[in-house]
């Protein structure tokens, strides 16, 4: 039996010893399978949890922090918001369509697992350089289609995201998906078995051999022989997912379920064990009762199958009939496979015969793996990269930069997503720095995902801080105060000290930032082994931050387009000259190196409060953070979206450090800055408010006309019509993907 050898393969000999010691005997093959699934890196966080402890997870609004399928935030009026982030990197690398689609399915079921209904999706995608790599274009096209087909079909809008291209993702694309859920506080159920005597119901898709050993697959590097992994392919069925969403929503409303749990990595093995040991109550399940797609499956195969669109429900006996009726209405298949029991064991049977029995004390807490950590030597070389010569024609440089896939409009992607379904999308993709949705209690929330692997490669700590800073500025520019984040940390093999050091630094960056401003991390995920065995190359360190902010009222909603001619353009925050990891260095000069901007969380927070205050006062008409491409790109985007030109004078910018060259002033991503359009008639009020908030600022120009005209000491640096800029910025990605010029 081939599976037997595969089952034990990812546990180390030390781990096996721990199991034997805790159990006091040699586990049988089925028991090994349970432990292996549960103790995989993917499920147990054994290499990361000591580091993740650095993250602040508590806050007044946090009802449930990390550790469950989703975090829960109190949004008042008896309502909660749930949030989770997941990746499906390895499956997407071999089957981008199915991999990305099933990634959506998984994160949506996480939201259902806490008794909430999914209301919005976000995606954060990383690929190789699509201008030169047809493989990466193929991946991007199919990943986007996978997300679109699945998300659209289940009726959950995909409302925001981000996209980054870098050579290091050529063989390891990253597909991160985040889901927001909402529900009534009293309908929340947590995925744990807290009471004996409940029936264990498995609902949804049939169990087949697809995706067997997916959890341990995700915990291994990609093999050169992609064909060999065929059993890991999972076929998405959004139809069943949609029926599960609708059936569960009705059952939540009627309080029919005691607990519900997604079957993800490790299948039933993980789901049953987690339900049991989190709640401290045992389960007794007969695997032969599971409704199966194939008739000749072995107990182990049923146990570890990762067939999608399945959920476990714990149901009290007297409610079973109503639950059955509901599942039948939605034509969902289900089977009653066992019950929760007093004894603190996970007991598995096959046609009545006991085939595995594991005490809960054996299952939880895989032993932590101590990993060596060493600062990579290449960091010094990268940091000391000399600056390039300043190009003569910055107008031309600017046009090239606008066409960079990292900068150009992402409308080709988000127009494939139904971002409207659910009638709650107040601010649509592309209209502001974050998307805004209306919550069931009538309040508004802004959400955004951000990452920046180029910066994190050169300086993991500063890069991670920068991402949080950008994320919070995005929320604030949309009118929201940051309230919680989730993080997703993605790296290569944690057994490599260089890689592990980068992981630690990225987590420390997120932790320091969030600690300083008091914003909790309510959930997250770690994905290691994102490297391919052929080249031995790991991806660039890729933390991704998903932020949620709340708006005090509808009038706070802010978009980025210029609104009116004759207003002032004001830059808030100091411009600094670090260009390491900037799109200007990477795309125009092909330089990977330099110094990464250092952000200061406390002055960021002052900036955020100032922007929100200006909006509240009604003097701010548009806001946009300065990120990829620097000030020049931010100004261009505001002008293009508003179809209004502008003039700007670079010498007016508040700067820190040495005198900056024109290219630095235009394209630096440094400092924490937000560009705003301020009502000209009420500028005095704005000025006074900004002084009160101690935020450095300068009026650098005015809105109006049909041109984007940027000068330095009165000398023209950039001069283009809004139409010319729009042509470059808006259509470059689409042209690349659709293959026309």
């Amino acid at each position, binding site marked *: 039996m081939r599976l037997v050898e595969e089952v034990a393969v990812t546990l180390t000999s030390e781990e096996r010893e721990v199991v034997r010691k805790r159990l006091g005997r040699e586990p049988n093959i089925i028991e090994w399978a349970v432990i292996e699934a549960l103790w995989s890196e993917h499920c147990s966080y054994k290499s990361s949890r000591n580091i993740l402890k650095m993250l602040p997870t508590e806050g007044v609004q946090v009802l449930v922090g990390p550790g469950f399928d989703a975090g829960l935030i109190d949004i008042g009026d008896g309502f909660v918001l749930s949030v989770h982030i997941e990746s499906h990197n390895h499956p997407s690398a071999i089957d981008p369509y199915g991999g990305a689609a099933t990634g959506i399915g998984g994160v949506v079921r996480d939201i259902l697992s806490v008794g909430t209904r999914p209301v919005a999706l976000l995606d954060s995608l990383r690929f190789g350089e699509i201008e030169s790599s047809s493989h990466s274009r193929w991946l991007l096209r199919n990943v986007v289609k996978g997300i679109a087909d699945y998300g659209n079909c289940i009726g959950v809008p995909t409302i925001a995201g981000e996209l980054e291209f870098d050579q290091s993702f050529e063989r390891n694309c990253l597909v991160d998906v985040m889901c927001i859920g909402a529900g009534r506080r009293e309908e929340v159920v947590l995925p744990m078995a807290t009471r004996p005597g409940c029936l264990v119901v498995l609902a949804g898709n049939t169990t087949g051999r697809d995706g067997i050993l997916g959890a341990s697959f995700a915990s291994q590097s990609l093999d050169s022989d992609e064909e060999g992994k065929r059993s890991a392919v999972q076929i998405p069925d959004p139809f069943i997912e949609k*029926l599960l969403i609708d059936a569960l929503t009705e059952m939540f409303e009627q309080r029919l379920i005691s607990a519900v749990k997604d079957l993800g990595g490790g299948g039933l093995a993980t789901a049953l064990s987690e339900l049991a040991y989190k709640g401290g109550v045992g389960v007794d399940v007969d695997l032969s009762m599971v409704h199966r797609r194939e008739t000749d499956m072995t107990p182990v195969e049923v146990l570890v199958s990762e067939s999608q669109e399945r959920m476990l429900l714990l149901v009290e006996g007297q409610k079973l009939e109503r639950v059955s009726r509901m599942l039948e209405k939605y034509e969902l298949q289900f089977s009653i496979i066992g019950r929760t029991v007093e004894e603190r064991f996970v007991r598995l049977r096959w046609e009545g015969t006991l085939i595995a029995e594991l005490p809960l004390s054996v299952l939880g807490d895989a032993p932590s793996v101590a990993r060596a950590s060493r600062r990579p030597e290449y960091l010094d070389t990268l940091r000391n990269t000399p600056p390039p010569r300043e190009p003569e024609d910055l107008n031309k440089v600017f046009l090239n930069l606008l066409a960079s896939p990292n900068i150009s409009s992402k409308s080709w992607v988000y*127009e494939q997503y139904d971002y409207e379904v659910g009638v709650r999308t107040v601010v649509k993709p592309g209209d502001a720095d974050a998307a805004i949705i209306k919550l069931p209690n009538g309040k508004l929330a802004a959400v955004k995902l951000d990452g920046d692997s180029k910066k994190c490669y050169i300086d993991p700590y500063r890069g991670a801080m920068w991402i949080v800073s950008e994320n919070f500025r995005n929320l604030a520019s949309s009118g929201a105060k940051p309230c919680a984040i989730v993080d997703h940390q993605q790296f290569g093999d944690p057994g490599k000290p260089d890689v592990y050091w980068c992981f630690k630094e990225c987590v420390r960056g997120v932790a320091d930032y969030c600690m300083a401003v008091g914003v909790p991390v309510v959930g997250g995920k770690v994905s290691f082994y994102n490297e391919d065995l052929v080249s031995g190359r790991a991806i660039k360190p890729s933390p991704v931050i998903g932020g949620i902010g709340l708006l005090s009222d509808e009038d706070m909603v802010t978009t980025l387009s210029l609104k009116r001619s004759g207003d002032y353009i004001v830059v808030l925050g100091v411009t600094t000259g670090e260009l390491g990891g900037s799109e200007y260095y990477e795309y125009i000069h092909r330089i990977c190196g330099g110094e990464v901007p250092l952000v200061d969380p406390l002055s960021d927070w002052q900036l955020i409060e100032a922007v929100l205050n200006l909006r509240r006062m009604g003097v701010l008409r548009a806001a946009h953070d300065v990120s990829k491409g620097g000030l020049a790109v931010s100004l261009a985007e505001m002008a293009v979206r508003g179809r209004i030109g502008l003039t700007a004078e670079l010498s007016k910018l508040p700067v820190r450090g040495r005198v900056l060259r024109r290219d630095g002033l235009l394209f630096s991503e440094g400092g924490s800055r937000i560009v705003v359009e301020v009502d000209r008639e009420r500028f005095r009020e704005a000025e006074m408010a900004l002084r009160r908030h101690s935020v450095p600022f300068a009026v650098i120009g005015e809105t109006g006309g049909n041109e984007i005209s940027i000068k330095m000491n009165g000398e023209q640096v950039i001069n283009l019509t809004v139409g010319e800029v729009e042509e470059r910025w808006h259509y470059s990605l689409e042209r690349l993907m659709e293959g026309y010029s």
Partner: protein
Amino acid sequence: MRVAIAKFPGSNCDQDVAYAISRVPGAWSEVVWHTELSPERYELVVLPGGFSYADRLRAGAIAAHTPLIEKLIDYVKDGGLVLGICNGFQILVEAGLLLGSLLPNKGLRFICKWVSLRVMNSDTPFTNAFEESEVVKMPIAHYEGRYYAGGQALRLFEERRVAFVYADERGGVSEECNPNGSDNSIAGVFNDTFNVLGMMPHPERASDPLLSPYGTEHGLRVFLSVANYVKGGA
């Protein structure tokens, strides 16, 4: 106005339509599971958007074979009003209640965006709250939305059975602002007795100024029109 919103397995926009109708004074709606719906109890039956049966085979093809559709055929014969939005439109053409078919978009991609529509006939139960030829904003979101009239497009125009066409901001029609490649930019059509309307754009998503990038609520007028008609005002 009493409205039934039919829910099929895979319908996504049932609650969205209910929300829009809640904004119509005096209107009342309920979402009804397709097997339990008796059309004659309502003044309007809406087939909402979504992916009934996951759009398998062809969008709308499987839902068109359900018993509800047989009931709707009789209901329409008796003058009942049926509105099909997006997937609902696809079901209606698959069921033969409306002329034509809906093919995959010309770009072979799902498209979600706000578009401008020109109102082609404001003298019907569904459009009497619009001005003739006015340009309105609503979002589309579909993969199979390219209306193919099977050579009958001109007849549809002549018989004033075209409800909306995709247009530019001034009402001009061109291939450039025809997002999916529909015949003659057709976005919505009536049956020959004007008691069935199928449209790809989503009026329910354009029924609250807060949710419109333009601060408009043009979509609400579809529901207001029906309410007027039912009251005998049009």
